[in-house]
């Protein structure tokens, strides 16, 4: 056994030394590598062999560690570990980022409705529209009287052939509806200023002409707040609203909408001087049946300034208006079917209390006024028709008659050649107190009209018919309006009794534009006659009184002069052909 171990060591030692020297030598040149050697020892003889065999046991000897390899392995392992860690970190970061992005997205989405909401709500809470009435009119026969359409102040008698292009109405309608039950409407409109303000002085030697007269100015037509929440929960009364401010009055706009032709002609009471706009407080709405579908009645009741929307209020009283429309068979849309409408308006002249309290024989324009209209109407989709009876007290004055234009004498400017010496028509005429002539002037006629219309005890009666008919399968609609009016039926034969009629055809190429050609006529239908001064005295005509600085015909102290006839008392007619254009959005 001892001899076997000595044999092993004598063989193994040189081998080990060889390996070590080899490794040492190599270590000077190369990086040492991990090295393992296996010997095989014969169990019986103890001999050491290099190769395995029977009865041989393996004997392994590990040499020096290969640090480079280990380093690479470690590096590789570290890299792997690092990669894994980095990947894990990146994945986690990405996950976190996605989560953060989701949260951010939610926040941004939560922010967007506020911005989108503002825009969306704005477009649902605000509406802007425009309305324009434009026309060309040719007057083969001019006269004095109310205008056919707003802002049309034509030169009167003696101007046959007068024609013009006009802008007679322009609205810009802005509606604000911040909630379902509140509307604020603002409507500025164009109007033509008429007046002769004097030139403007600049410094001591310079002047500039006035540009007031004839300019198209802007004023506010409507500015009101409307609340419709009071009856929102009632199916029968839903749609009722309280309106405060400058607003459409209960009747004129309702009738204009019924006619569908406001761009062509004025409705009867509007033509006579009742404005479509008033400033005040109004309650209006429908009354529906049990199911809340059909409307059986409509009401509009309000209290307003005595002045129109374009006048400053002076009075300490107010006017009240009320309209009730009944639809006995139920109306499924506005005006549908047969309807009966009644309108009542009661008010006072727009005069300051201190002026109104002054004692006068007759109140004249300071007196109370009232207007009544009773209508029967029927509307279908293709046609409609309306008949109206009008009644009024002190509701048509000299200013109403000459709303379009009138003779100078109606505006304080005497016309004609006066008598400035001698005695004429019962009066002594001088240069300082001339007398009106009977010819070549409108003075005595206007004084007669003033007596008939402004005495504070006038009574008006009128009848009207209007309607439209759509020609089937075309874009054309026929329309017409007839008005008969007696400005004071207390006058036995009133020269101012008139008839107005409009007839024409309208073309509608699209929902925004309409064009009409029509004839418009104002006829003072009595044959001309002379009016004795004696028939005027009950109406507050003062014979020999001063008018525009001149003495009127007649003198109470000279009874013979009361037989003086004022000639040509019936005014001239006005005829016109219109081309009307409407734009509505």
């Amino acid at each position, binding site marked *: 056994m001892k001899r076997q171990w000595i044999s092993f060591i004598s063989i193994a030692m040189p081998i080990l030394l060889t390996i070590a020297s080899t490794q040492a030598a190599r270590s000077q040149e190369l990086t040492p590598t991990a090295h393992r050697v296996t010997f095989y020892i014969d169990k019986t003889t103890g001999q050491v062999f290099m190769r395995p065999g029977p009865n041989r046991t393996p004997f392994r000897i590990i040499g020096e560690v290969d640090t480079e390899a280990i380093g690479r392995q470690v590096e590789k392992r570290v890299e792997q570990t690092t990669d894994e860690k980095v990947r894990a970190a990146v994945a986690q970061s990405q996950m976190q980022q996605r989560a953060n992005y989701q949260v951010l997205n939610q926040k941004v989405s939560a922010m967007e409705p506020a911005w989108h909401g503002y825009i969306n709500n704005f477009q649902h809470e605000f509406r802007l529209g425009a309305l324009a009435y434009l026309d060309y009119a040719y007057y083969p026969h001019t006269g004095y009287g109310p205008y056919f359409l707003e802002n049309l102040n034509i030169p009167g008698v003696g101007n046959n052939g007068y024609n013009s292009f006009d802008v007679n109405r322009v609205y810009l309608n802005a509606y604000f509806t911040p909630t379902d039950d509140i509307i604020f409407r603002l409507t500025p409109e164009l109007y033509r200023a008429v007046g002769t303000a004097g030139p403007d002085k600049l410094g001591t030697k310079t002047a500039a002409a006035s540009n007031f007269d004839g300019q198209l100015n802007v004023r506010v037509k409507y500015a009101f707040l409307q609340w419709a929440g009071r009856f929102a929960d009632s199916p029968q009364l839903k749609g009722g609203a309280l309106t405060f401010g400058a607003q459409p009055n209960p009747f004129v706009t309702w009738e204009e*909408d019924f006619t569908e032709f406001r761009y062509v002609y004025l409705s009867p009471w509007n033509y006579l001087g009742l404005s479509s706009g008033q400033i005040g407080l109004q309650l209006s709405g429908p009354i529906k049946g049990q199911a809340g579908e059909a409307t059986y009645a409509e009401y509009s009741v309000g209290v307003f300034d005595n002045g129109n929307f374009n006048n400053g209020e002076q009075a300490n009283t107010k006017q009240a208006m009320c309209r009730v429309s009944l639809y006995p068979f139920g109306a499924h849309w506005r005006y549908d079917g047969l309807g009966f409408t009644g309108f009542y308006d009661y008010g006072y002249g727009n005069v300051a209390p201190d002026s109104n309290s002054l004692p006068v024989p007759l109140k004249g324009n300071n007196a109370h006024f009232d207007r009544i209209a009773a209508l029967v109407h029927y*509307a279908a989709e293709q046609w409609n028709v309306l008949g109206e009876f009008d009644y009024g007290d002190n509701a048509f004055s000299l200013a109403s008659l000459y709303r379009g234009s009138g003779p100078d004498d109606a505006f304080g400017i005497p016309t004609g050649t006066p008598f400035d010496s001698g005695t004429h028509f019962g009066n002594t005429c001088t240069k300082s107190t001339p007398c009106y002539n009977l010819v070549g002037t409108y003075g005595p006629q206007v004084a007669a009209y003033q007596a008939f219309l402004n005495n504070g005890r006038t009574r008006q009666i009128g009848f009207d018919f209007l309607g439209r008919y759509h020609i089937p399968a075309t*874009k054309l609609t026929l329309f017409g309006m007839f008005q008969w009016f007696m400005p004071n039926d207390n006058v036995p034969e009133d020269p101012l009794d008139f008839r107005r009629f409009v007839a024409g055809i309208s073309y509608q190429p699209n929902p925004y534009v309409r064009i009409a050609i029509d004839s418009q006529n104002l006829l003072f239908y009595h044959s001309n006659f002379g009016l004795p001064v004696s028939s005027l005295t009950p109406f507050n005509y003062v014979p020999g009184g001063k008018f525009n600085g001149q003495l009127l015909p007649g003198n109470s102290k000279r009874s013979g002069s009361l037989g003086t006839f004022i000639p040509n008392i019936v005014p001239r007619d006005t005829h016109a052909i219109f081309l009307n254009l409407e734009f509505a*959005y």
Partner: protein
Amino acid sequence: MKLSAAAVFVSSTLVLSGCATAEKIFLSSGPKPRVEECAEISKATPTRYVCNGKTYTSVQLTNFSSGTGL
């Protein structure tokens, strides 16, 4: 003769083409409801019409006529 025939031909063409144009302009056409067959019930913003018992605005009727419906 030739001249008068030519004149008749030209004038007929002008009249007929004018008639055809006039028909296009004045006759009702296009998808329904058509504004000319409706009753205007309110001059508001927008204007409202009634056609066959239903209420439409001017904007809706324009959409119908252009084929984009409501």
